[in-house]
């Protein structure tokens, strides 16, 4: 088989079909190569055709040149067809001039042969827009009808007409037509699939297959040759005609195991041996006249090859489908594994359940343990169990999809975070048929988030320490107030005692004041310590108005020193938010300090900051800090939130970045905008949901 392809000189074409070439490339050496192959192929085909003639019958049983031309057209783009026809013409002349055929007849035959190839290739090309292969039932059907049947059918009229016009030979019009028709059908059915499949990718395939398969192919070839030899040489003319079916199992073997390549090669082997043996007077097709023998062989081979080609196509199509399915499955399972996805389903009607292996490992289910909602819930962390059960129940009742985030408590105490999504599938009668779903293990993600949170917390703390550093003077002032009061009271007490006229009531008051002021000093120190210590990031319900007041207390002295008035417009009955109070203090402190800095160049009389809290309609609360300062950069107000952006000569440019990251970590949004005579910073935080009990670690 391989030798045939190489002998035809078509190996140069084998990679052509794999990549779409541009016209420019085609009109280079490759075109010359194709032309040469077609020339050689056509010429050799004609020689083989002559050799396969049953003497004294003048017409070949199988006429290959037309098929070679057809195969060449099928394998090449329409744009180069003229080159192929041009190359075939000299080969045609060279082959035909060796017989005593008048030149006019030679020319006519070339025309009819070209017609046949063009009709077949044109129709096939028109109907199949991809490279023609014999791996699909539809393609093979189109090929058999249009290229193998319609082409010879139509062109044979032309051919017979030419013969009649030229008064060549003594045969009647219809006889010529019939002989040429059957001969060309056989050639098209046997040779075209062989050439197309093997030239397109058969040779490359041969190099790729495993040794075992190569041996199988060799074994099949030997078996086929032996059986064919027995059938066509050893059986006498009187043998049972049913024995003609002996090669069929081997042909099917070729089609099943080696697809269209195997089938076409096997058919060719059969065809060649059948005609060759008949030509030499052997076998079942040597008993009658040459013409009758030829017709019998042709009929036999056509009948054998058509189903075989179709069978091979079905086999290949199915193989490809199975492979595609397997590839898709592999891809999905790879995706599932790499995304830590778990697939599962519970069919209530069939009482069946299934979960991917990885899922069973994660949930700690046995390999064949039947799944149920109860079993699933037993693995969920006790704190999350009720919420998960509620979500599933809700999905069942409302026929909705549920999505839940929860923790799994594994027997070793290990906790894994998962997100499950699933839905109930109902049957035609509206009853529940199946529960299907996926789960994603997001433990790594949660841990990374946690890590990130810790880093952010550390950054925030550094920023708080730095803020405190800037406020040292003011805080010292703040602390000095109660200390002064204490010292003054103590001195007064001492003096009163020295004067020997202590009024007990006044002394009581004095000591009470000392105690109050000592506590006040302690509170200030506690506040500072609380603000700069390493936070645990614990969130609780926080009233933002309270935060505003606390921060103003902290900044009290600084504001006095700057001569800045702070006005507050705090919304009454502000809903609480779920937040880390220290971090919120930091947010407000940084925003306030930022506003104060921005007003360094503002005249003392108009230095003013307005802090307001409002309740937003989308169940969030908003805090706005508005100043009458220099405003934000006009080109890009958001620039102030980028790292290392600072207008202060010794500023780090981290303050507002941290503010934003804190607000966003709380599920809020922070914006900045220029307003009349200043700037406004505005952040929102979601209101605590009433039922929310989840504590974020």
């Amino acid at each position, binding site marked *: 088989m391989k030798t045939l392809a190489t002998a035809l000189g078509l190996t140069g074409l084998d990679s052509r079909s794999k990549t779409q070439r541009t016209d420019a490339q085609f009109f280079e050496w490759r075109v010359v190569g194709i032309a040469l192959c077609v020339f050689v192929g056509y010429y050799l085909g004609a020689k083989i055709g002559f050799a396969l003639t049953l003497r004294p019958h003048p017409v070949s049983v199988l006429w290959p040149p037309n098929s070679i031309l057809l195969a060449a057209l099928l394998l090449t783009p329409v744009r180069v067809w003229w080159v192929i026809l041009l190359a075939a013409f000299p080969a045609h002349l060279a082959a035909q001039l060796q017989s005593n055929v008048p030149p006019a007849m030679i020319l006519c035959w070339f025309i009819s042969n070209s017609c046949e190839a063009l009709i077949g290739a044109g129709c096939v090309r028109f109907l199949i827009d991809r490279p023609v292969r014999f791996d699909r039932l539809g393609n093979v059907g189109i090929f058999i009808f249009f290229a193998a049947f319609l082409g010879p059918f139509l062109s044979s009229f032309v051919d017979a007409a030419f013969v009649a016009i030229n008064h060549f030979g003594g045969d009647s019009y219809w006889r010529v037509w019939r002989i040429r028709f059957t001969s060309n059908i056989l050639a098209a059915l046997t040779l075209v699939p062989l050439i197309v499949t093997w030239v397109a990718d058969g040779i490359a395939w041969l190099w790729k297959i495993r040794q075992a398969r190569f041996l199988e192919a060799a074994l099949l070839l030997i078996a086929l040759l032996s059986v064919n030899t027995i059938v066509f040489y050893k059986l006498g003319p009187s043998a049972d005609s049913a024995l003609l079916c002996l090669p069929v199992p081997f042909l099917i073997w070729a089609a099943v195991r080696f697809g269209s390549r195997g089938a076409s090669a096997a058919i060719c082997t059969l065809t060649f041996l059948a005609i060759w043996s008949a030509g030499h007077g052997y076998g079942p097709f040597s008993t009658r006249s040459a013409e009758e023998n030829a017709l019998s062989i042709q009929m036999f081979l056509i009948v054998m090859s058509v189903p075989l080609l179709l069978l091979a196509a079905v086999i290949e199509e199915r193989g490809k489908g199975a492979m595609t399915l397997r590839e898709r499955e592999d891809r999905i399972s790879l995706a599932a594994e790499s995304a830590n996805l778990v697939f599962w389903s519970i069919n209530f009607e069939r009482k069946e359940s299934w979960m991917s292996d990885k899922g069973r490992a994660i949930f700690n289910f046995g390999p064949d343990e039947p799944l149920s909602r109860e079993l699933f819930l037993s693995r969920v962390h006790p704190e999350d169990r009720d919420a998960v059960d509620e979500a599933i129940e809700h999905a069942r009742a409302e026929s909705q999809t549920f999505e839940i985030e929860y923790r799994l408590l594994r027997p070793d105490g290990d906790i894994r975070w998962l997100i499950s999504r699933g839905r109930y599938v109902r049957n035609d009668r509206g009853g529940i048929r199946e529960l299907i779903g996926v789960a994603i293990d997001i433990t790594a993600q949660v841990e990374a988030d946690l890590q990130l949170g810790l880093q952010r917390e550390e950054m925030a703390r550094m920023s708080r320490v730095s803020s405190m550093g800037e406020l040292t003077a*003011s805080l010292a002032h703040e602390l*000095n107030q109660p200390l*002064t009061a204490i*010292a*003054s009271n103590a*001195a007064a007490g001492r003096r009163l005692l020295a004067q020997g006229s202590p009024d007990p009531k006044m002394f009581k008051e004095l000591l009470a004041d000392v105690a109050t*002021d000592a506590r006040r000093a302690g509170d200030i120190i506690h506040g500072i310590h609380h603000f700069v210590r390493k936070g645990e990031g614990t969130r609780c319900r926080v009233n933002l108005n309270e935060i505003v007041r606390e921060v103003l207390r902290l900044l009290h002295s600084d504001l*006095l020193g700057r001569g800045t008035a702070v006005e507050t417009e705090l919304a009454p009955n502000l809903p609480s938010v779920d937040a880390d109070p220290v971090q919120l203090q930091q947010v407000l402190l940084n925003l306030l300090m930022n506003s104060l800095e921005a007003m360094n160049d503002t005249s003392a009389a108009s230095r003013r900051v307005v802090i307001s809290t409002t309740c937003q309609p989308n169940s969030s609360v908003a805090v706005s800090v508005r100043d009458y300062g220099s405003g934000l950069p006009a080109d890009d107000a958001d620039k102030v939130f980028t790292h290392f952006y600072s207008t202060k000569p010794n500023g780090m440019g981290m303050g507002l970045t941290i503010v934003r990251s804190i607000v966003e970590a709380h599920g809020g949004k922070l914006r900045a905008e220029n307003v009349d005579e200043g700037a406004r910073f505005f952040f929102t935080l979601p209101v605590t949901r009433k039922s929310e009990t989840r504590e974020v670690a």
Partner: protein
Amino acid sequence: MVDDDQSVRRGLGRLFKSAGYAAETFASAEDYLAREIFEGPICLVLDVRMPGLNGLGLQETLEKRGACEQIVFITGHGDVSTATQAMKSGAIDFLTKPFDDVELIEAVKLAFERAKEQLHKRGERREARGRIEKLTPREFEVLRFVIMGLLNKQIAAELHTAEKTIKVHRGRVMQKLRVTSVPDLVRVSQRAGVSPAHNPHKTKIN
């Protein structure tokens, strides 16, 4: 005492009371300014940092009002420039909280001394002015030439009048100012802030 912090007000109030002073406290500079003016000696203990008008601002306002309060500043966090400004404007002391009570009481004592002194001076001036106000414009003119050291003859030449007339004026001036000698006349004029007349003909003085 003016301080925005209630604790400080109460503590210091007690301290002053124990030291024998009648202390009055105000929460802000504005509160103090709203009070009717006290004529006696006043020591103002003043916080620097306050909402509204701050300590230095109050000092400035009082100076413009021409009052004679003596100011002792107290501050939670003293910086050099504020202290310098306060002292330049005539503050008695500038103390940083928390301060020693003795230090404060000393400063207050000094402030009262100064206040009394100033009040005394002011009283004298007022009295001298009262006498001078009784002079007629002509007599006042003559006074200014007299304290300049001019003789009657010279004054008469300056005013283009007779020496005799000047003598009569001079006698009336002495009478109205209730002095008997020229040095006494000069002292009273100084207290009242009357400056000698400008002399356009210097050569004639000697």
